Each structure stands twice: as C-alpha cells, then as structure tokens.
C-alpha cells in the first residue's frame, strides 16, 4: 500500500540508516581501500565499541555518543599497536595476503569469544533520554535513536574526509598503497603512515559501536551481520574513496529502507549484495570510484 508520505519517510529513514552505515564502513574503507589490509575484524571492533558504551553507560550513565568520542583515542592506540603486530608478523615478510587474513579472522573470533565469556549472548542496550523519542517535522518522523547516530556519523565522516584531503598525513595515507617507495622519496615513513591510518580506522569503530548500540540492542555476534554489507559499501564506494564510501552507504541505506517498507524487512539484507553484483558487472571500479 503505497503513499507518498510512506515513501518520503522511508527515504528519510534510509538517509539516517545510510549515514550510520557510513560510520561503520569508514574504518574499513581506510584499511581495505587505502592500506590493502583486509581487516575482516573491523565490525568486531565496532561491537567492542558497543560494549564499551554499554559498560560505561550502565555504570556511570554517560551519554553513549560521548563515550564513543572519549574512547576514540584508546581505540586509536589499539589500531596503531595492531599495525605494529601485523607489520612485524606478516607484511614485513610478504605473507599478508593469506596469513594476514587468517590473523584478522582469528582476532575477530578472539574478541567475540572474550565478549561472550564476559557478557554472555544476551542483547544489551544503552539508556539516554532521547532514545524512544521522535522529532516530528510535518509529515516526516525522525526517531532520535536514528537521528542522533546519523548526525554523529556525518560529523565523523566529514572530519575524516577533511583530514584525508587537507593534511599532509591524510594525503600520504591516500598514497601509501599506490607507491610506497615513491612516498619515501617524499620524505614520509610508510610504516608510520600506515600505523596512523589503522589507528584512525579503529578509532572510528569506537564511535560507530556507540552509535550502533543506540540504534539497536547488541550481542557479541551482531558484527557478522554487518561484514557483508560494509564490504559491499566499501567496494561500491570505489575502494578507499571516503566520500564514495559515504555515498554508497547512503544509497544502500535508502534502498534497504524503501525495500523493507514496501516489501518487508526480510528482503533488506539482500539489497547490498544485489546492488554490489549489479555494479561489479557494469562498473568494476565501483559507482563512486575514481577511474
């Protein structure tokens, strides 16, 4: 049963959902797209971020978004350390393709198991005054549990885009996988560049996790539902173009939202892959990729 109002609200909900997807995909866009590191554990770091938000929120009543922001430096440090380990164990010896993948798989399981052993498999939530309330603007509904994460996601994405395009380190991150040796000739240290990049990527997961647990209850294995979707977004976005990733996330969010409004939510998960397969057939560099 189609009404223009329903469609409009589906689009608005999709825009908010898509912005959130962008926050989750952002870190993967950096690792997978810029560093050629297949960090399959990225969604698990997002879940780790959700649990951090849960614990602090539960014990101290802090706002989940604020917790996400506060924990970004700690996650940044985890990311830089992770790169040191990854480099020393795999990249230095050129074993990154297969062993590296196994490493991130292992990391994913370890984090997940630790979370399960600590918290069990129950769904956890956070509390904040705005969760459960809705902003009404004419015919449009903006539930705060979607709106707040969407705004935070747009801000963090914008900040990363600015960083990548306006700072020397940001440009070095964009360049490092294209020609590492040439980057050294510019006076940059590729290992430092990659370390900082992975730090930033994992830092975004802290915030994305906090946003996720505002949107929905979280249990340790929820991250897996996002793996396919966010890889699809990163590839659609043109592998490492941050603004491309954002647009691809919005596209998937909106299409998913429309499909689930008019055809039922069970179709929604197929949307990402549907669009991905179509795109790969027609435009292998992704919809929003640079040539």
């Amino acid at each position, binding site marked *: 049963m189609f009404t223009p109002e329903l469609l409009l609200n589906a689009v608005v909900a999709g825009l908010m959902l898509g912005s959130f997807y962008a926050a989750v995909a952002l870190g993967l866009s950096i690792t997978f797209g810029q560093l050629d590191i297949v960090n399959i554990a990225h969604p698990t770091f997002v879940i780790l971020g959700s649990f951090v938000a849960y614990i602090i929120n539960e014990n101290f009543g802090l706002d989940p978004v604020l917790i996400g922001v506060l924990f970004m430096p700690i996650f940044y440090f985890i990311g830089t350390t992770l790169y040191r380990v990854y480099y020393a164990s795999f990249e230095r010896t050129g074993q990154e393709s297969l062993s590296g993948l196994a490493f991130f798989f292992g990391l994913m399981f370890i984090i997940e198991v630790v979370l399960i052993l600590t918290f069990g498999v129950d769904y956890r939530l956070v509390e904040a005054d705005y969760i459960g309330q809705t902003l009404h603007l004419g015919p449009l509904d903006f539930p705060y549990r979607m709106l707040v994460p969407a705004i935070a996601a747009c801000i963090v994405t914008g900040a990363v885009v600015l960083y990548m395009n306006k700072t*020397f380190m940001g*440009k*070095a991150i*964009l*360049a490092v996988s*294209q*020609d590492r*040796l*040439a*980057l*050294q*000739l*510019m*006076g*940059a*240290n590729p290992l430092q560049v990659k370390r900082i990049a992975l730090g930033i990527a994992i830092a975004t997961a802290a915030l994305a996790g906090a946003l996720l647990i505002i949107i929905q209850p979280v249990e340790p294995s929820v991250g897996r539902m996002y793996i396919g979707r966010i890889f699809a977004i990163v590839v659609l976005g043109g592998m490492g173009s941050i603004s491309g990733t954002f647009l691809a996330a919005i596209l998937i969010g909106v299409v998913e939202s429309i499909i689930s409004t008019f055809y039922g939510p069970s179709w929604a998960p197929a949307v990402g892959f549907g669009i991905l397969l179509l795109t790969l057939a027609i435009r292998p560099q992704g919809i929003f990729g*640079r*040539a």
Partner: protein
Amino acid sequence: MASSITVTNVEAGYGSVRVLHGVTMSVNSGETVVLLGSNGNGKSTLIKCITGLATPGEGDIVLDVDGEKTSLIGKTPEEIVDLGIAMVPEGRRLFPSLTVEENLHLGAYRMAAREKLAENLDFVYETFPRLMERRNQLAGSMSGGEQQMVAVARAMMSDPTILLVDEPSVGLAPILVSRMIATIKELKEKKNLTVLMAEQNFNQAIKIADRGYIIVHGEIEFEGKTADDLANNDMIKQYYLGT
C-alpha cells in the same frame, strides 16, 4: 647554500649479487653532473644508494652542506630527503590515482618544504603551465611527457638543494626529451641546484652537462672533466656515435 655529494669506493647490490664495484665519484656544488651508461650498468643503483633506497655494503657517501659533512650511509630515505636531496625516480613513480596537485602537495611533505608550499607550487606551475591546466586530473591518466613533468615538479616541491634525476628521457618522444632536458637546466639555474642526472641518451645529456662519468658493469670506466672531454672520449664514440 653550497651542497655537494662525494661517493667513495661504494660497493652495493641486491642480495648476493654485487652491482657496484668500488664506485668513486662526486657532484660539486652548482654542477650538473651526468652519469652515462647503457641499460643495466648500475646507474639507478648508484642513485638509490645516495637516496637510501639501497644500502652500500662498503664505502661511504658524504653530503657536504656549507662545509658541514654528513654521511648518508645508514640513513633512511626520509632522513635523506630531509637533508634537501630530492630524486626523480626512473619510471616517474607518480601516485596514479591522486590528482596532479595532490601529487605535488605530497612532494612538499618534509617539514622544511611545507612552509614554502604555496611559493613552490607557484614556481612549478610557472615552469610547467601544462600542469596548472591539468591540476585536477588524475596523474595516472596523463601522457608520458606530462607525467615526467609531474615527477620533476613533485621533486622540486620538496625545496631541494640537490636534485637527482634518473633517466628523464625514457619513454618520451625526442622533442619532449629536448624540452625536459632544457627544463632541468632552467630549474637548476633558477634554484641554484646541484644536479646529478643518470642518462642513456648521451646526445641529450651532454647538452647540459658540466662534466660526467661513464659507468660500465658497475665501475666508473671514464671520468670526463668537461663536457668536451666526455664528447671526445673514444668510449663515447664507440657506444653512441658508432665510430
């Protein structure tokens, strides 16, 4: 600023393969020195040793800036760039999916160059107006001649005192080679550079050389104290002029 490089008895190679056998040469302040030799004789390896991309097993490479001597052995390429040595690598090695301007910005990565970014950007756009027109184009989508311009411009963005250029003529049409060689001379004069250029193309290289060396199988076979000295050498005649 007076900058020179002295290479003494350098032995270097890849793994167990020795490529350079006791190379001794120098580039004095304000000179354009050419390193001549056909393919596979060790020109690039020598330049890589100077920039820290290859590590000599023996010998020394010393940078002299206004009398202050620094050994480059054991320094990372980043540290060497920071000392004011820029390299235009063989095959250009641009960042293909970044724009021309992004490539140029990255050239100014080292701290001393960042402050002068705007000034140096104006300078390279003045030198290569073509790059100004193409500044938002992806570097990988440009023609070979344009890419070589980006590579040279990018090196100039690091505000160097010493410029190392590895075979700028490769893959370019003869007219473009002439222009590129003339531009290197122009850059050298405007910025008071010290230049070391590796080339196979003797006839082009000799046009801007103050003096030079001929390298064969990783050894300096001949040192020409002047450009004429090089041009009249029997070996050159044999290699390049077919007499």
